[in-house]
């Protein structure tokens, strides 16, 4: 993994995909990397989060949450609803991404029971970070 936090996307090559491609994936990765250090929480050395925004009926890409114990890396692929992204502004899409990121950690990390990694504290810190950025509030409120 090229970085401790990796954000990328599987996106349609259209204006809907562009809402993530040019700014939002970079902003999210930059903020996570700047404010959080995975080594503070234990042994996990990398978390890759791939946002999928593809048209309905996509049978090629599936959601997944995988931990690779040998590499101590987490690989996540999660879908954002295409129509929701289509109807949202670029700022709203960033908020959708942050909410999905946090929701995924909350739902999947406890089930994985990764040894020597404080999942609860990490998830809490991600939530605080996103709150500080104003990403968990609705766009009008922010």
């Amino acid at each position, binding site marked *: 993994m090229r970085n401790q936090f990796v954000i*990328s996307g599987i996106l349609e090559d259209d204006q809907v995909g562009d809402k993530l491609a040019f700014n939002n994936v970079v902003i999210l990765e930059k903020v996570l990397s700047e404010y959080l250090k995975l080594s503070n929480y234990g042994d996990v050395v990398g978390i890759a989060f791939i946002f999928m925004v593809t048209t309905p009926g996509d049978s*090629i890409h599936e959601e997944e949450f995988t931990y690779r114990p040998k590499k101590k890396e987490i690989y996540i692929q999660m879908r954002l609803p295409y129509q929701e992204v289509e109807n949202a502004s670029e700022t709203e899409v960033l908020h959708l991404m942050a909410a999905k990121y946090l929701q995924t950690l909350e739902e999947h990390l406890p089930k994985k029971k990764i040894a020597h990694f404080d999942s609860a504290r990490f998830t809490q810190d991600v939530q605080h970070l996103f709150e500080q950025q104003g990403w968990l509030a609705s766009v009008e409120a922010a």
Partner: protein
Amino acid sequence: MNTVSKNYRTGANPIAPYPGPMRGILLFILCCCILGLVALWEENDFLIQDENGVVKLSPAREEKLDKRLHRLENAEQYVLTARIDGYYPCYNCGKDTLIYLRAGEVWKYGVSIQGEKGRYRNQLDGKELLYRVQYKGSIQECLQQEAIKIYQYALLPENLKRNPRLIRPPGNKVDL
């Protein structure tokens, strides 16, 4: 009982014999036999005979074929683009191994079918790349689209402004 016979009694607390490597070997042979039987069963299970004596594929093989055909009918042609401005590996730059790409510029064209997630995954978490879906259709159509895009890449404005120009995208090692 004298002292010697007390100290060297053979009947009480016998030391368990060391199983040696034989137990492991036997276990290995047993596993091989089971796997062999399963494989043999699967090999012999691929054909059935209907009530008229006509030989045909077993339901399991038919189902497997249908799934395979469905996957080949539902493919997609994608492009991996630079996520940020920076240096990326280049397989078509002569002696240079890196090329400077601006965000959004093409690194590689490819084709995916269902169940082949491993092919692009390392590119997404290992390099600064995004996966963009450009065309959906049968594998045949997607391979045609891929070939067209790889060849036409040389004419893209992002390539025409370079010196020297590339014959194909930096990440495509061959035409197809």
